[in-house]
């Protein structure tokens, strides 16, 4: 769907905190795995805020647009005030309408859920994340929830097509249409309508609060999930918790002409610069990037290398109860390649 990067150049937005360290791990590993790919570092995060008064300057966004593909490290967003989210800015500016989060148990990563394997497709450009908010009076604040029929149709169709590609036989729509009968109601109606065109895929729907309970009690029942922006944000972090946390969760943002693959965890300022960060999440996202570029053999090589290091358990970063540093982990993966 998106530009397949004919120039072999990838935009790199390192981000803040541990972002530069985990980005460096990706670059080192790719120098062995895919030496023909070149990286173009772009300004983002706190440095961009200092130099350009924006965590994601227009020049950086336009360069990602031109290259068509990017890897992005974590950036922070202030709560309750300050600048808008760089992540949301990038997603909306480049119309990266589908956020894809595979949730898959990883060998060697401790979790009470060893058999989880589903993918969440989250609508990425609408809903409350339009962030259209107003004070109506000194005591009343409103936020507009905006859904459009075309926006609902394209994310649902994308989810069905991805289910076909991944040979999944079930797609679950998550919503709260019992309460928000017009907005979520339109999303659910659109899902039911489009599902008629995919007779080989069982279409189910679950109300979001029940979904959270189902994910905690019986996550293995799910194969593919499609949902709106806010619910997807919440449910995908819950999903990451099932498989070992955000430190081992991959994420991709897909549009019709661009794709951005990102670490979904935070900037971890407490360990930034100390060489302790776990680069697994960004590496798993880079595997999604390789698959997006149809470089399946390289994707599989990297996946096997990461999983074998994790499963062996000798080189683990501190978040996974080990004592290895970022460079130790990176070296171990390079050796496995």
């Amino acid at each position, binding site marked *: 769907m998106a530009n397949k990067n004919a120039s072999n150049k990838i935009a790199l937005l390192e981000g803040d905190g541990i972002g530069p360290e985990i980005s460096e791990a990706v670059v080192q590993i790719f120098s062995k795995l895919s030496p023909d790919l070149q990286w173009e570092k772009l300004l983002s995060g706190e440095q961009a805020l200092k130099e350009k008064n924006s965590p994601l300057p227009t020049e950086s966004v336009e360069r990602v647009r031109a290259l068509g593909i990017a890897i992005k490290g974590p950036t922070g967003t202030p709560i309750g005030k300050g600048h808008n989210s760089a992540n949301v800015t990038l997603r909306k500016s480049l*119309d990266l309408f589908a956020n894809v989060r595979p949730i898959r148990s990883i060998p060697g990563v401790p979790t009470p859920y060893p058999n989880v394997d589903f993918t969440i497709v989250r609508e990425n450009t609408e809903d409350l994340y339009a962030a259209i908010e107003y004070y*109506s009076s000194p005591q009343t604040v409103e936020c507009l929830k905006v859904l*459009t029929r075309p926006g609902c149709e394209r994310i649902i169709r994308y989810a069905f097509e991805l289910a076909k590609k991944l040979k999944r036989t079930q797609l679950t729509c998550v919503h709260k249409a019992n309460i928000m009968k017009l907005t979520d109601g339109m999303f659910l109606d659109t899902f039911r309508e489009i599902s008629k065109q995919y007779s080989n895929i069982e279409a189910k729907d679950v109300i979001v609060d029940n979904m959270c309970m189902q994910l905690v009690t019986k996550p293995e029942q799910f194969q593919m999930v499609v949902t709106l922006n806010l619910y997807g944000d919440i449910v995908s972090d819950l999903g990451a918790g099932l498989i070992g946390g955000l430190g081992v969760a991959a994420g991709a943002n897909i549009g019709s002409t661009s794709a951005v693959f990102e670490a979904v965890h935070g900037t971890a300022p407490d360990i930034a610069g100390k060489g302790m960060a776990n680069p697994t999440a960004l590496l798993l996202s880079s595997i999604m990037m390789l698959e997006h570029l149809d470089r399946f053999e390289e994707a599989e090589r990297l996946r096997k290398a990461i999983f074998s290091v994790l499963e062996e358990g000798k080189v683990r970063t501190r978040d996974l109860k080990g004592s290895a540093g970022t460079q130790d982990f990176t070296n171990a993966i390079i050796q496995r390649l």
Partner: protein
Amino acid sequence: MAEPSNSSFKCVGLDVFVISKSGLPAMPEKVEGLKLELISERGLKVWPNVTLNKDSILTDTFRCRYLLENEKIADSTQQINSLLKTLSEKGAEWTEAHKLWRNGDQDLYSKAYG
């Protein structure tokens, strides 16, 4: 944020949501002491000075943000009412409008993305 006091709660503009079935609406840039600051679609700025993906604009509803040119005006009721009247007379199909309030130097409305 502490609750804004009634005395410092001041209207400095209006967001007008306009339906346009043919893409970005052509809106007057200055009306009755108010200036068109931006146009957004689903929260993302699409005017001025924006490069768009061809698929970016999905909907038929655009938010047009008008702000007072002279911020010293204490009561903007006349400007706001004139704006809506002028837009209606020019054939703009507006579907909702929201006043933009400020408390001292703090904007009580969100910024657009982009």
